[in-house]
């Protein structure tokens, strides 16, 4: 990208997207070639993040915190040491961020946009360098967490794109007590191929590619992933407006589904009364109905210990004689409880729990323990209306 902050001054989100989509606009002929989806080329990627406290113009102070705070891991420390960061503010809610990697003589550019509690990071940087630069940064910033969708939600959202069909996908199967982990990567998919993958291999999609027509032929190619990243691969000249609408619809839908699954609106709060007290608020995120039909409390605990709770992020204690685990997420400074209802896992919010720690834990369970759980949330006030 070759951008300057003035390109984005006083621009709406729609206008910003329109501007950046130019990087993937193609002619009819190129569109034909691109349907093969090979080779290294430019895509527009959008990372969707929950931001709790992060604001445009504050990147520098967060980087300083990462460099100075004792609790930060050595990975974060060396990451901050290996790169330099600068943020040029274009507007209250838009900035241009560059991450330099002096050792490789690289400069990579990203557009940060905040809106409505969310941070979007847009970039055309290729995947290897995205991982080394922005994905690490988003991972280390404690106030920012990439959104996450379960496989069911990912399918639901992608299915909802008008005039579109699934043209490829990545689906994964991963479960305890299995000999193998499977990853299916399917390009040139036909209708029902995704269903077949699920039926045959119990594989759940983590990325879905779609082709969208703008009558009569394919005009937009993109993909959607479970880990808060949308991609526009190509947009046929003349279909830019439709592509922007697609992106806006996807981001809106993505945020809504993420909110439904992880947002803690009713955390338990104690309140004193003249004659007694109340505890109001209840939120449970439920991981249910996995591939395996049974497990004991002990098995679930040791599976979680070996695959999810190990590592630096979590500290935990066993409660209720092995029926619950109290978890302290040190990345987000929050606690929550895991109640075991084998083979299901029920996450209960504590007073301080937010979407940050729920989302992060659920993602780890899907990635590291069992990809076959279904996800839902139940919550309500208890003492008040």
């Amino acid at each position, binding site marked *: 990208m070759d951008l300057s902050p003035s390109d984005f001054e006083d621009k709406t989100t729609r206008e910003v997207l329109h501007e950046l989509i130019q990087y993937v606009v193609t002619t009819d002929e190129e569109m034909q070639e691109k349907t093969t989806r090979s080779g290294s080329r430019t895509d527009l990627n959008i990372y969707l993040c929950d931001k709790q406290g992060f604001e445009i113009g504050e990147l520098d102070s967060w980087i300083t915190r990462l460099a100075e705070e004792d609790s930060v891991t050595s990975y974060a420390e060396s990451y901050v040491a290996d790169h330099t960061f600068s943020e040029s503010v274009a507007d209250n809610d838009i900035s241009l961020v560059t991450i330099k990697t002096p050792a490789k003589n690289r400069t990579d550019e990203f557009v940060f946009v905040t809106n409505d509690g969310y941070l979007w990071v847009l970039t055309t940087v290729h995947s290897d360098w995205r991982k080394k630069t922005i994905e690490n940064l988003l991972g280390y910033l404690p106030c920012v967490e990439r959104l996450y969708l379960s496989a069911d939600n990912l399918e639901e959202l992608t299915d909802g794109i008008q005039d579109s069909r699934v043209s490829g996908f990545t689906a994964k199967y991963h479960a305890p007590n299995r000999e193998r982990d499977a990853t299916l990567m399917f390009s040139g998919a036909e209708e029902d191929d995704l269903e077949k993958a699920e039926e045959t291999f119990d594989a759940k999609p983590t990325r879905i590619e779609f082709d969208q027509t703008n009558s009569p032929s394919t005009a937009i190619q993109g993909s959607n992933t479970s880990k808060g990243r949308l991609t526009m691969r190509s947009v046929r000249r003349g279909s830019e407006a439709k592509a922007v609408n697609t992106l806006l619809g996807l981001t809106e839908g993505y945020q809504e589904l993420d909110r439904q699954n992880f947002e803690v609106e009713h955390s338990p709060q104690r309140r004193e009364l003249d*004659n007694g007290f109340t505890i109001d608020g*209840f939120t*449970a995120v439920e991981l249910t109905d996995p591939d395996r039909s049974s497990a004991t409390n002990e098995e679930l605990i040791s599976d979680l210990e070996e695959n999810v709770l190990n590592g630096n992020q979590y*500290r935990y204690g*066993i409660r209720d*004689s092995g029926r619950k685990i109290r978890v302290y997420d040190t990345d987000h400074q929050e606690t929550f409880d895991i109640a075991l*209802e084998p083979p299901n896992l029920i996450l209960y919010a504590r007073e301080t729990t937010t979407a940050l720690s729920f989302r992060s834990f659920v993602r780890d369970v899907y990635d590291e323990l069992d990809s076959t759980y279904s996800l839902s949330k139940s919550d*309500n006030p208890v003492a008040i209306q």
Partner: protein
Amino acid sequence: MDEVTEGIRQRREVNAYNLFYSAVTARATPSLYNHGVRIPMLFPEIEDRTSDITAEPDFVLYDGETCVLAEIKSGHNIEGRHIKQMRECAGVDIETAEAALKDAQVQDRMGYTGTVTAVEPAIVYQDLDEVYIEEAATESTQFRDRLEELTSYAVLMTQDYGDQLRPLRGEFNKSGNLQSLLRRGIQLPQNPPDQIMLTEGMEHEILAIAIADVWGEKALDYADGLEVSRTEVRDYFSPQHNVRLTDLDLVFDFLVEIGACEQVENHAYRFTRDRFDAVLDVEPQVLSEPVEDYLHGTEQMSLTDDFENE
């Protein structure tokens, strides 16, 4: 580990409260919440202004019409004490219930007018069923008499994990929305959340867990840790639970000993993030062994020990 320690017994008591609480959460089927039922008060003291009887139910349920005063038991033995408790609840008339709900600010908080059409005392045991009641009533006159007296004051109900909350004996005073919901039964979750960490007696073990849960976790929000005094802790639990200062001293001795907090001055303690691993160890420790035994050992527990520690 099969031995039921004092800590495990207290845990069961706590769990029974939390199981009942879960009937008003979205994990119950049907959820009482979806039918307008709320829990406006926990562990209230409901005083009758005309007599000097005070009812102290564990839970109050209210749906804008009916006020259920519920006493929760973690076992299934009907004790004489339970009859007294339910007699007191049965003594709460409509005006008294309305006054208590008014004190609990139900109008502001729930948008309910606060009028009560019926007060329904209920006592909820765990894992009790018709067959047991039938058999026990046949075998024991005392059981039969107690059952009869108890159900003259309250509806006798049962609840269990992953099973139903439902009435077994006795009739509700009126037939309203809440009564018919309870009559039909509520399917409860297998593993409800730890919303309440209190027992009737607030013994050392549950007190240690409750202090670790409240202040140990609150301290995570402060880089320099959080200080709390003995009296602040006492005030937090009062007046529903009158925790003795000597009990608090003993429990804080324990918490300091296992490293969950440090003593900063007389009767003041500091919880910090770096002690959180020890905070997490509090529950498994007190469930495996009484607090006193941990501090003084099981063997040399004697009167002299107690004197020395006064």
